[in-house]
């Protein structure tokens, strides 16, 4: 792992999270890997132990997507959304929702290529600051599968530093 491949995560405003990561591949391939079910189901798995039995992508403005993750113990979670802008190989805007009680986010992916390497920037826009902080708290997939009670317990086991 080189420094160039390090993942940057920033919170530039109260309602955003921005991730930036460089990949050693042209953006045409990064786009493909990000938007075709055969590839997505191989890498978008979150923490160890999860598989992705459902990965449906209807890649067109207004088209929907639907992902389901499953753990060996039977736990499942799903996420769905709609594509708003589809501009290969550089820009993808989509909505994302974990379930009825979760806020919908608007995710903007941009891919910029330089010398065969691609800088991926994913901006996640939350409807409110509280929604964003809650999502950060749950640590995405790992926490979404975890109830708030279990999260509270985890908080208590954190070693104070």
């Amino acid at each position, binding site marked *: 792992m080189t420094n160039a*491949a390090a*993942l940057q*995560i920033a*919170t530039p*405003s*109260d309602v955003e*999270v921005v*991730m930036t*990561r460089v*990949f*050693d*591949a042209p953006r045409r*391939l*990064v786009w*493909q*890997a*990000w938007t075709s079910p055969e*590839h997505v189901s*191989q*890498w*978008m*798995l*979150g*923490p*160890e132990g999860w598989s992705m039995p459902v990965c449906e992508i209807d890649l067109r403005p207004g088209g929907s997507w639907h992902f389901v993750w499953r753990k060996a113990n039977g736990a499942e979670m799903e996420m769905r959304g709609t594509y708003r802008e589809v501009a290969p190989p550089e820009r993808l805007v989509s909505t994302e929702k974990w379930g009825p009680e979760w806020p919908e986010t608007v995710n903007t992916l941009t891919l910029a290529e330089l010398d065969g390497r691609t800088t991926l920037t994913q901006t996640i826009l939350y409807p409110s*600051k*509280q929604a*964003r*902080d809650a999502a*950060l*708290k749950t*640590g*995405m*997939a*790992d*926490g979404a599968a975890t109830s708030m009670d279990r999260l509270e317990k985890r*908080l*208590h*086991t*954190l*070693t*104070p*530093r």
Partner: protein
Amino acid sequence: MQPSGYEPEAGGGLDATFAALADPTRRAILARLAAGEASVLELAEPFDVTQPAISKHLKVLERAGLVSRGRDAQRRPRRLEAQPLAEASQWLEDYRRHWEANFRRLDAVLETMKSADKKRARPKRQGARR
């Protein structure tokens, strides 16, 4: 592990922490306090803002449990409280770990795609390139 060392009511919670951290002046104040405690006057010095403005920022930081006041009645030095900050960065760390795992797998997927690409290109110009 010191579960008893954590007091949920002590600070203003993670929301308050993130709100307090959202302002660049407040982040600068925290950075200054990381180097050691300081009075309001000392804290105001490097900034192009009035002392009451600094006091207001300090109030936000205190409410979030990020800053506390020292015992010295004259100077009332402020000091950094590390615990809420550690929690906030812990959550960001979880988020980061989740995506780092994803992106490492994506690296591997891209490598496979790159070699598939090369294989497709090879029959056309064998030996001429690469």
